[in-house]
């Protein structure tokens, strides 16, 4: 029983990480039709900015308020880089899907290479509060605090995103734009303004994912973001493009499944996730929350 609880809670922690990676990806794809392969770079930027701030920035550190400050620096850096990428690289290429893929793939490769050039290819110990490496006993299971932190932060981000989409004017424009972008323009709304904001929000969430991945895995390395991105894409496809709640459910399914299968089968978890992806694509190609024919121009 305690094993089940442990697997479930650590699976939910993993799900939290996946949700943070994929929420921005899903919104960006749903609204702007941009398949952003550079999203993994935003994770790495967040993680490295926090790592740098914790060691160099006065007042920042690896404990308490100092760590929070370092996290804020990382999140702001992720949002800023994402906005700049949208304004400089993506904006001139809207409606040109192939070119977008090329530029984002190239940016992601170049970004990883740049991080390697500056800080080396080796993993570096990530600054983290001491309590995140301890465990909490729940129902007889010793659950790592970092897993609980991941799940809790994901729930807070989910609630904040839903409130933002539901109660703000920009949120309304985003929800409508995901359904039919051309019609939003035909109502007199400059839908592109919302694109930059969605990139910034997605970049912030991705940076948070990168930081928490550093805390959870205890190290940060240049390629970390890119390898997490693969699962991010899988979650987005399973959840249905553009739906935040669909993304959340898909993240839970993928994270928990992966954790359980990995425990009982010695490393088949990743394959199982790909099998789940194939199954969803066969049975429900629009994703869990997707609408049939929802991919209008």
């Amino acid at each position, binding site marked *: 029983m305690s094993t089940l609880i442990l697997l479930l809670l650590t699976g939910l922690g993993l799900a939290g990480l996946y949700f943070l990676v994929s929420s921005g990806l899903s919104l960006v794809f749903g609204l702007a039709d941009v398949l952003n392969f550079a999203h993994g770079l935003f994770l790495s930027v967040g993680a490295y900015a926090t790592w740098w701030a914790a060691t160099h920035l006065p007042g920042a550190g690896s404990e308490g308020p100092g760590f929070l400050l370092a996290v804020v620096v990382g999140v702001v850096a992720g949002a800023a880089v994402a906005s700049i990428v949208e304004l400089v690289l993506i904006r001139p290429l809207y*409606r040109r899907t192939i070119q977008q893929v090329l530029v984002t793939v190239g940016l992601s490769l170049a970004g990883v290479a740049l991080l390697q050039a500056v800080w080396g290819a080796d993993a570096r110990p990530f600054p983290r509060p001491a309590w995140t490496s301890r465990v909490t006993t729940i129902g007889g299971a010793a659950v790592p605090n970092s897993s609980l932190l991941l799940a809790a932060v994901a729930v807070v981000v989910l609630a904040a995103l839903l409130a933002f989409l539901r109660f703000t004017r920009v949120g*309304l*424009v985003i*929800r*409508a734009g995901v*359904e*039919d972008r*051309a*019609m*939003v*323009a*035909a*109502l*007199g*709304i*400059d*839908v592109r303004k919302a694109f930059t904001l969605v990139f910034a929000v997605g970049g912030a969430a991705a940076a948070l994912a990168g930081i928490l991945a550093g805390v959870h895995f205890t190290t940060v390395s240049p390629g970390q973001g890119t390898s997490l991105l693969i699962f991010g894409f899988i979650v987005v496809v399973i959840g249905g493009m553009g739906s935040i709640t669909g993304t959340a459910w898909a993240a839970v399914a993928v994270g928990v499944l992966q954790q359980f299968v990995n425990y009982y089968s010695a490393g088949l978890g990743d394959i199982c996730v790909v099998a789940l992806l194939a199954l969803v694509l066969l049975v429900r190609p629009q994703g869990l929350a997707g*609408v049939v024919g929802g991919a209008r*121009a």
Partner: protein
Amino acid sequence: MAGVPPLLSVVDLRVRIGGSPILHGVTFDVPGTGVTVLLGRNGAGKSTTLKAVLGLTPIGSQVGGRVLFDGVPTANVATHQLVRRGLGYVPEDRGIFAGLTVAENLKLAHRVDKPDYDTAYGLFPELKQRGRQRAGTLSGGQQQMLAIARVLINPNRLLLVDEPTKGLAPRLVTEVADVVSRVAHSVPILLVEQNLGLVRRVGHDAVVLSAGTVAYSGALGPLLDDEQLTRSLLGVGQHHDAARGGLVA
């Protein structure tokens, strides 16, 4: 009409979509009063004309020629800016956001600080009661009302309305005809419509498209009175149309 400049001028409009030509040089004017009907058989290019005026033709399509709205060329003006200058659009498929509520659909359409809900709710009181209902669960007629109301809460200089009676029951066709004729008192309309009963009731001027070119342009009355001309241009007799249940008294 001589001496009064048209509100909208379409000059030699050419559109190719996916390599195939849809419009081959369409030229017509829309005066600043009354209802101008845009007629033609299915596939003649009526909806494409409206979309091209608004810059809404699909990705990869080529658009040539000129469109002047109130004398100003629209070629380099973004769709949302054209709409903000007073071009209201009610598309053929209604363009309702199914996942949003009725109230949210209306709220999204706000272009001014004080949107005029009185006119919209006056015409369609049902929309007020159904404010919290998801627009996707409305009937076809209700969705059409929402699409029209969404445009009417803003001040418009010209409405582009694409087949508002498509797929509606005869009773609703009458209702839409009432709305169109009431709205036409305050704002000019360029109306795409297949229902000749409705056209006869509300229209003043007519433009008939045939295979991507203008086959007739002028007053509506002489066109509809000439049964042979109507039949040759539109492919339907008026009595046949009445038999379909579409005629509005």
